[in-house]
């Protein structure tokens, strides 16, 4: 797929003919320098934006022609999101934030037990009734991970999940994501500019000037086309 912003002289190609597939259970890093197009790529995969050319297939579904409501429903059921800043709704408690995707899906019955288990797994069992703005940044990211997993999504998408955290907390969040991915056989696609925080992962895709390369950025990289 390609993503082009603007027209004529103002045309900017953010993603240039990028194509790859990810298998279930893989932990994939998308790395690249600032402005390389990695967040744009994540937004395409997350159906938050549309490619100018090309298609995104998730769990066997061509998402190109889905209506806005279908895309919302698809995001709700098939995707989990973790963002860099303020992931949570500050008007709700931590538990309510984790339950929100289930409420939106209309499958709230019996969800609370699941949410409590997830919060326990991410180490927030003693924080779940606090308002989301009363917990630390690291705890908020943990809660976001729990929320991202509550609907058993096909993919969890994380956009710079450690970008706003100190190094100690970042390491804990990375460990947590990797543990959850392994334990739940959960696909994670993580965008980061900080490759070394993540250690060993299943795959690394590097975005450079809108093009995608398999592996770490180097002269021997295999272009993903």
């Amino acid at each position: 797929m390609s993503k082009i912003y603007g027209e004529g002289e103002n045309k900017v190609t953010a993603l240039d003919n990028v194509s790859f597939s990810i298998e279930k259970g893989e932990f994939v890093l998308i790395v690249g320098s600032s402005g390389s197009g990695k967040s744009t790529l994540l937004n395409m995969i997350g159906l938050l934006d549309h490619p100018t050319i090309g298609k995104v297939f998730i769990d066997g579904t061509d998402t190109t022609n889905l209506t806005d409501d279908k895309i919302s429903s698809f995001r709700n059921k098939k995707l989990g999101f973790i963002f860099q800043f303020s992931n949570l709704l500050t008007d709700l408690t931590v538990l309510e934030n984790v339950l929100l995707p289930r409420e939106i899906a209309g499958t709230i019955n019996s969800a609370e037990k699941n949410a409590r288990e997830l919060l326990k797994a991410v180490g927030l069992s003693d924080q779940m009734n606090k308002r989301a703005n009363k917990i630390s940044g690291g705890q908020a990211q943990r809660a976001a991970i729990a929320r991202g997993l509550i609907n058993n999504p096909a993919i969890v998408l994380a956009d710079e999940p450690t970008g706003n955290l100190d190094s100690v907390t970042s390491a804990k969040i990375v460990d947590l994501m990797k543990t959850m991915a392994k334990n739940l056989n959960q696909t994670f696609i993580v965008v980061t500019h900080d490759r070394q925080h993540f250690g060993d992962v299943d795959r690394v895709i590097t975005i450079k000037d809108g093009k995608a390369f398999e592996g770490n950025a180097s002269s021997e990289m295999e272009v993903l086309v």
Partner: protein
Amino acid sequence: MYQLRLAKRMLFNKKGSLIGAVLAVTIGILVIHVNFVIFQGLFDAIVRDISNYRNGDVLVTDEESYITKSDKSLVSWFERIPYVKAATPRLSSTASINMTKSGTLHEKTRIPIVGVDPLNDIRTSTVHETVSDGQYVYSRNSIVLGSNVARDLGDAQVGDSIKLKIVDRYGQDQIRRFVVTGIAKSPGGQGFDYSVVVHIDTLRDMMNRHGESSSVMVKLNDPSKANDVKNFFLVAFPNDDFKAETIEESAEEQLAGFRSGIAMINMIGYFGMMSSAFAIVTIQMMLVNGKTREIGIMRSIGATRKDILIIFIFQGMIIGAIGAGVGTAAGLGYTFYAKETKMSFNNSLPLEVSYNWEKIIQTAILSFILAIIASLYPSYRATKLLPVEAMRTV
């Protein structure tokens, strides 16, 4: 229903915005209630005083001239109807009056003069209660002066002697001397402040209209039966050229201008409510702008545009419901205060305050609906935010 819970949380966590929006609705409703209490109260007070002092609930006159039928038979006919409290005849004309006081002659012409039957008049009308000094007409040579007439006659007082001249039905001057027995002054001036009152039989003698009356004033126990009584009467006396009117009909000329004034004041009240709606639009827009990132997060985790629309419309409903409740309570509080204190301005006539439940409920519902309508555009704007753009807002 998570949208309602979220709407409540978002709103109650922004107490300043909530209070501002609720105040806007409250003030809109309060303006309408205050307008109603003052202007409708004033209107109803004028109607009340015209009814109590002059026209009764039903006023019988003759289509052409004077009522020649015996006033006693008419009064007893009316008083047989259970709805009727009392009835009384009156005779009206104009007179010239003069009085010499401290060697100076004071003279006034074209003063309205009303002849009353003292016994029936006290039962039918409350105008006798406006006699602030002395007492009401009680004998054939006693006269009650309206306060303005008394002032124009050089501050006439009870016990003074005055000379009154009228022109009888044959064009002859009829002059008679009276003793002032009372001075009438009504709050608001709807009573006999600009008239003089004498015994009806005395006036009949002077006008040479024995047994005749200008009108029969009928007061009812239940004013809502005025039309029934009027119709009974007209059916009972089909060939007598009688004209019977309810208070709304007989006072129409005096009230027409006031009625359109009230309509205009009500319009101003509703414009006030529209201003409240604009305030809600502004506050809701602020709430939407303040929640842009949250809207983006909700959209990213699967909330549809409709879900977002519902959340902000719920906020409008909450604002409308609280505002309508508080505004109606404040309006009822003001109405209660005005009623209990018999509110009046500058010692003028006390307002006739009533609880118009239909209007109260209508105003509350209207403001609730307006708050929802005012929330539609901000809610629609919220749905138009693209998740990826919304989440860039920090």
